[in-house]
């Protein structure tokens, strides 16, 4: 068994216990009118991080390392990462993509979110610069 299958029988049994549940969950959506979009988003979700987001920030990080060799790189890296994370997560509000539905249902807008994100970014880099200055001149 181990030679042919490549792992212990428990490995196979664990998969056979779980994969039918996954199949059941997917079966509950396949005949819905929006099924294709759900499955497409699920499939894209499986690759978007590994083939888009990670290569994208890795290239940025490499560029940062060239621009600011270590140990200075972390003074750029950390505020950039925090700012990027906030942008990634609050993109619907910052970009205003969520605004039409937000305004239609609740009467509110996303005014000022882009501005506040820019200010947060400025403050993060300013703090990092100040820390670099203090530590660098010691």
């Amino acid at each position: 068994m181990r030679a042919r299958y490549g792992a212990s029988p428990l490995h196979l049994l664990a998969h056979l216990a779980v994969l039918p549940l996954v199949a059941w969950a997917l079966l509950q959506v396949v005949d819905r009118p929006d099924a294709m979009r759900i499955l497409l988003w699920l499939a894209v979700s499986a690759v978007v991080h590994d083939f888009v987001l990670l290569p994208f920030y890795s290239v940025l990080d490499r560029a940062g390392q060239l621009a600011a060799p270590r140990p200075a790189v972390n003074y750029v890296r950390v505020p950039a990462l925090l700012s990027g994370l906030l942008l990634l997560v609050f993109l619907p509000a910052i970009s205003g993509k969520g605004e039409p539905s937000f305004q239609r249902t609740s009467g509110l807008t996303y005014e000022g979110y882009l501005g506040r994100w820019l200010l947060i970014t400025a403050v993060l880099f300013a703090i990092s610069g100040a820390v670099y200055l203090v530590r660098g001149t010691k």
Partner: protein
Amino acid sequence: MTPPGPFRPTFWRSPLRGPWLTALLGSVLLVLVAVVAATGFVSHAAYQPDLPGNAIVDPARDLPLNFVWPTGFTYLYAVTQGLHVNVGLVAIPFLLAKLWSVIPRLFVWPPAASPAQALERLSIGLLVGSSVFEFVTGVMNVQYWYGFRFNFVVAHYYGAIVFVASLLLHIALKMPVIVRAYRERDAARTDLVPVAPAAPTISRRGLFAVVGAGSAALLLANVGETVGGPLRRLSLLAPRRQVIGPGPNDFQVNRTAGGAGVTAAMTGPDYRLALRFEGREVTLTRDELLAMDQQTATLPIACVEGWTTTQKWTGVRLSELARIAGAEGAGTALVRSLQPRGALRLASLRAGQLRDPDALLALKVNGADLSPDHGYPARIIVPALPGVHNTKWVGGIEFS
């Protein structure tokens, strides 16, 4: 022959990667995700999908995980969804770091050396896909970006089942590896340890600090809408950070009267509340409701999106309305909104929710008449009830 680039082990050079780092990141992520998943399924049950009008996921296609949702702890739903959304945000940097730590595994060559490995890679694909899907759809939904154009509740629910199932499988399969990683640190040489490590630019401790700072930033940017008070304004990117004003009706509106299609004609002098039980109907004007015994209760409205607002409500007890309808022993009540269209204009309450002394058909808030956007002429307010089930613009209550 191994293809070039990321398929070569020498391509991955970060000296931070290794089984111990992955195990540690995975352990933190597991605790966070356990909270998010548990609160998600609890919230699903809090909607009491077994009652008429409540289900969004077809009950015939649901798991039998429902239970009677209590009223005892007023902030139960606020805590449930506050945790779901805020811990979900905290988990995001850990998820990204965890995925970064194992990225070389995506490019192993050959792609599958055995049937076991092929099967496990399929389950990892399901795990990565469903986890990213759950976080992306959740984050989009709380900010009203429905660009995915599918039913969020249904997709997020079944996506969660795929996520939890594939996560349990992953933990079960990796348990020996995790234990070894903790015991032996990187003496447990696996393919995660780089064969040609670059000089470090940051320590592992530093990496954890940065990931933790990312979590703290996301939490601070949002948590004010959950906690309320002065913190609401300080959460600079929270979708529900707006402090609307000092007036009695100046607090968060989920759906405006205009957005729901409720007009002044529907709520004017011709307004009647219809109570029905076993074919009999009692109708009441708003003045008649105001002339009845009034009860005041300070209760939160807690949205599934994680924001909360606590106000002082005054109105008639639902148990009193049941008595007037001759339905004192009613098991459920189906509440109907005047809202002419859209989801959630019908919601059912259980016997325990009808009997709670703080369960009200509210007519006033903070001493003033409800504003049109807060449900004038009358709205439901029940302790620990999911926000949208506190039906606004109530036109009828059907006891059974």
